[in-house]
């Protein structure tokens, strides 16, 4: 079970263990990071679980679907490192990855 470093909106960093059978969104949410709204509960419809991913780890993540891409087009602060955390399952190769939470626009 990889541990990642979650950069909260206030700049503090939490170490969060990610169950490989759950999603990154679920791990961050269940760790009590309340600013990750994840309003739709993970059904790929709201883009409020938007995070920025450590570029060094980008190639270890599942590819982005057209639906995810389309939803990210609707957020204010999309970057080349944007992903929806509800779409990501992580394996041990992601140990130590930095994930930055993003203000909902």
């Amino acid at each position, binding site marked *: 079970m990889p541990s990642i470093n979650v950069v909260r909106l206030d700049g503090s960093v939490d170490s969060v263990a990610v169950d490989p059978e759950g999603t990154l969104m*679920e791990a961050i949410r269940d760790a009590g990071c309340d600013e990750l709204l994840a309003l*739709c509960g*993970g059904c790929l419809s709201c883009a409020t679980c938007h995070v920025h991913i450590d570029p060094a780890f980008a190639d270890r993540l599942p590819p982005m679907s057209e639906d995810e891409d389309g939803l990210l087009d609707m957020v204010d602060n999309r970057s080349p490192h944007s992903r929806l955390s509800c779409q990501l399952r992580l394996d041990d190769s992601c140990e130590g990855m930095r994930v930055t939470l993003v203000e909902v626009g």
Partner: protein
Amino acid sequence: MEQQAQDTERDYFTDLSVLRDPYEYFESIRERGGVFRSTLRNLVVVTGFEESVEVLRNTEDFSSANAPQGPAVPLPFTPEGDNITDQIEAHRGEFLGGDLLVAYDGQQHKFSRSILNKLFTPSRLKANEEFIQSYSAQLIDEMVAKGGCELINEVATPFVTLVIADLLGVPADDREHFREVIDNAPPPGNMEADAPPSFDENSPLVVMGTYFFQYVMDRRENPREDILSELSNATYPDGSTPDALEIVRLATFLFGAGQDTSAKLLGNSIRRLAEDHALQDELRADPRLIPAFIEEVLRMEGSTKMTARLAVRDTSIAGLPVAAGTPVMIAVAAANRDPKRWENPEAFDMQRPRLREHLAFGRGAHTCAGAPLARVEVRILLEHLLAKTSRISLDEAHHGPQGARELDYEPSFIIRGLSKLHLVLAP
């Protein structure tokens, strides 16, 4: 003080004045704090927005096992000790609806939810939008041509039933039968039941379950391009294949869950429009406002009034100690009007900042998976209804004059929705 509050407290689960106006009732208990202990039914009541979010997000300390039956039905066991996880699982089958997705906890929930989460994606909904558009147009044209309708039974229920049937791939021949079974059943959280509720052989979930079993077996043999095939052949995150019966339970639940709540949301939305002609004109002039209109209806009059949780271990809500085994009632309808969260909460305002954060679809792990579908359904039907009418009004022959309206709400402590809505539609 506590004694006095107890004497004057109305019983949310049986009092029909609460059914007629739950919002007035929730305001009457709000002064007791965002979370308080009710001695009447020996449960903890949450009316605050922040407090509700806290409980809904805390799946470590709170089980959903009692969500379908509600917090007032006695537990099937006597809680013992400071952690009742094992007791809940040992007695899960004795909770009414304890084997429904909304009642699942932990990994079982995570796994089933992972399958559902792929079903109502934007591309999937887009693919089905053509059917939703054409069926909405057909229904609305028919109703406008005859000058009016009873919206709930003539439009809302068949509409949401056929939309989910089309989406899932239910054969046309079976759809009408399903509708009859659903129409004849009491709503969930029925307040009129004189006997304890149960799932007998005539309950919609049981009847539909037998059909869905055949579909799932068929789709495992002969996969097609429909959601039932996708569901039937889905795997869990660990790569294992779900038991066919589990898929049957999920599909049946999806079909059942998509009915009442979406149909009632249509009723609540259109009742508001019929009572506010200026609002109608505003939306007619600019249909792009319809999504914000729907969100504000969801906040003010979403079709779910409350949900329930059960404290798994000794814990607390906003500092109030809650012992293991305590049922918790989360009054989402009250949270959605909490003045600490919503400025001027009784005003209908489509421009509210961060409006979509309302709790009409819940929050956290159990957030309604059908919300994206409900939003599309209501938006499209409203677009057609507004485009094809110059005026939508309540039929005073059935609902009485303005100021003395007679509106019948489904006798449910969970669902907020009209049983009938008679409309006059001017082309």
